[in-house]
């Protein structure tokens, strides 16, 4: 009984100590804000934060001036570079591979499981997440709790991507660049739309994964990108990443199979291996080698999505580009960018 009593006291006191530590921690000012104050105190008086509504309808207080940005998604990193705001980007994720310079930035982990301690220790003024490409709501919530301002992008259509670029430009204080970039992308899409006015959309199967067969739903930005490129996904479901039945695909007989890959030779090797398997061999598109491998830029809601759309359109409807055999160059590249490359497996067999 005596021992039990002591143990209870010990447990209680330990608990009190722990509670005190937790309470103490809460009173420490959040590092993000303290850094802002420090950087501002030297030359200017601290400006009032900019209150914006992000793509998830959350109100975000963005400290001004905005000096340290962390990107938690490849699409965000790409957009920040395209806006020319990369000198303020202090860290990104393990999978941010474009542009190549982004690979050299300090890393905070993967988009799904970023390291909160690393994020906080980098004292960001703003963390930008992409609600629809790999970031979790829990991450944004946790950053809110840590008083780190977090802005979420969320594009479900190609149009959303362009609008999202303008909004992010405004938030980052490069509104002019955002509007120029977005207008140039919109002009390219309009030009494309004009060229493709009289074509019949190609019926395609967009292959996300082959074992098992996973495609895209109609409400993804990829499906919307296909529509802009003069194509339509044969799979009509509201689910974003449906595992589709082979029977259904064989019945629908898509005219083209579209793959997205940064390594087209891997897809070519894979296709050579599966073309005689049941399912694949029953598709006319495989028999006629109508396989399109488009840049994996089509997977990201970022400026290069338009490059990928143009390249896909050129492959599917070459007759509409008879007067312009090469892709237009000199689009607004505020940062140094390489146009997305597209390769085709056609004729390589």
């Amino acid at each position, binding site marked *: 009984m005596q021992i039990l009593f002591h143990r209870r006291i010990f447990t209680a006191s330990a608990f009190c100590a722990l509670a005190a530590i937790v309470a103490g921690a809460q009173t420490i000012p959040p590092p993000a804000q303290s850094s802002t104050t420090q950087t501002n105190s030297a030359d200017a008086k601290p400006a009032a934060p900019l209150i914006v509504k992000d793509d998830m309808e959350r109100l975000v207080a963005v400290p001004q001036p905005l000096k340290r940005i962390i990107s938690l998604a490849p699409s965000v990193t790409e957009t920040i570079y395209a806006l020319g705001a990369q000198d303020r980007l202090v860290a990104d994720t393990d999978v941010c591979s474009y542009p190549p310079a982004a690979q050299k930035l300090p890393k905070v982990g993967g*988009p799904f499981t970023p390291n909160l301690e690393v994020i906080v220790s980098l004292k960001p003024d703003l963390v930008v997440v992409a609600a629809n490409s790999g970031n979790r709501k829990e991450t944004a919530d946790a950053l809110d709790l840590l008083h780190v301002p977090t802005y979420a992008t969320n594009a479900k259509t190609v149009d959303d991507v362009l609008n999202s670029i303008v909004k992010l430009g405004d938030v980052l204080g490069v509104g002019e660049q955002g509007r120029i970039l977005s207008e140039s992308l919109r002009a390219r899409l309009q030009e494309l739309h004009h060229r493709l006015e009289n074509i019949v959309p190609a019926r395609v199967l967009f292959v996300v*994964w082959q074992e098992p067969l996973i495609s895209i739903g109609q409400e993804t930005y990829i499906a919307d990108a296909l529509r802009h490129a003069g194509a339509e996904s044969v799979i009509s479901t509201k689910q974003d990443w449906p*595992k*589709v*039945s082979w029977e259904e695909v064989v019945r629908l007989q898509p005219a083209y199979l579209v793959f997205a890959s940064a390594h087209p030779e*891997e*897809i070519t090797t894979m296709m050579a291996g599966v073309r005689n398997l*049941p399912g694949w061999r029953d598709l006319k598109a495989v028999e006629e080698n109508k396989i399109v491998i488009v840049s994996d830029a089509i997977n990201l809601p970022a400026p290069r999505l338009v490059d990928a759309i143009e390249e896909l359109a050129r492959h599917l409807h070459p007759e509409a580009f008879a007067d312009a055999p090469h892709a237009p160059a000199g689009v607004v590249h505020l940062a140094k960018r390489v146009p997305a490359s597209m390769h085709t497996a056609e004729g390589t067999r």
Partner: protein
Amino acid sequence: MKPLTLSRLFWICGSLLTVLFVVVVVALKVGAVPISIADLALNLGRVILGRASQVPSEYRFVVFDLRLPRIFLAMLVGGALSVSGTSFQALLRNPLADPYVLGVSSGGAVGAIMGLIFAPQIPLVAPLAAFLGAIATIAAVYFLGRRKGQLDSTTLLLAGIISASFLSAVISFLVTTLAGQNLRGIVFWLMGDLSTPLPDALHWVLLAGLILGVGAIYTTAADLNVITAGEREAIHLGVDVTRVKLVVYVSASLLTGLAVSVSGAIGYVGLLVPHAMRMLFGSDYRVLIPSSMIGGAIALVAADTLARTVMKPTELPVGAVTAILGAPFFIYLLRRRLQ
């Protein structure tokens, strides 16, 4: 135990095969492309008579290239899983034993995921790597499960459980380090899935493996009856317990490895079907092994048909269907036994 007569065995297997036939016909009929029974009979007749060229191409592709092989695969995998479940339950004298418990499925899954991560462009890398993973796990658990040179049921069970949870942790580790797109394919693989078409020849390899494995286990059926009553008693009655255990362990593992390599981790079939068969036909292994094989085939063909059709054109992973239907059914069996 009822005395086993040849006519009783025929009667049991015959009635189960009739059920299987009905389930297969329904499975052939329903799907993303609906087909009438009359057309089905007509075209099956054409194929059997060697006039396959008369079959309309849509039928040939959908029914004979996709649906029939898939049903055949479901029969093989279901049969293999439930015979190995029956065998492990006898071998470990534990009613909760199934291919999962010994970590074989997890080993297969680790193999498949490694294959998909490091060489995704190689066709059929998942089944090959899964089979290697399953075999490696089987060997490891076997050596961990021996005590004083003997295969000890308790040690084997513990070795299996530890290996299974260790390998699950490895899977979690691999999955968290993956990029989003690869993850989608692998998650389906972990849940068990029969939708990926296989080369035709692989079906015959699987059939040969199933016949070999089930045949080997069946030769020990009479001995298993004695061993379930107690190992010491079995030794006194002149049963070579060590040999029986080795044969059953290796054969059941081979069956599980084959099943996991083509379908991923499909749960509950190996646990439930043997129990259902035991309740229906008694616990004589000479009846239980063949009836489990046919029962497993029925269960998995039925589950896969649901997986294909419930949300068409989207498919569910068959492992999710077996778990959703299997868990309540298992609880029902348990409650009934208690009353």
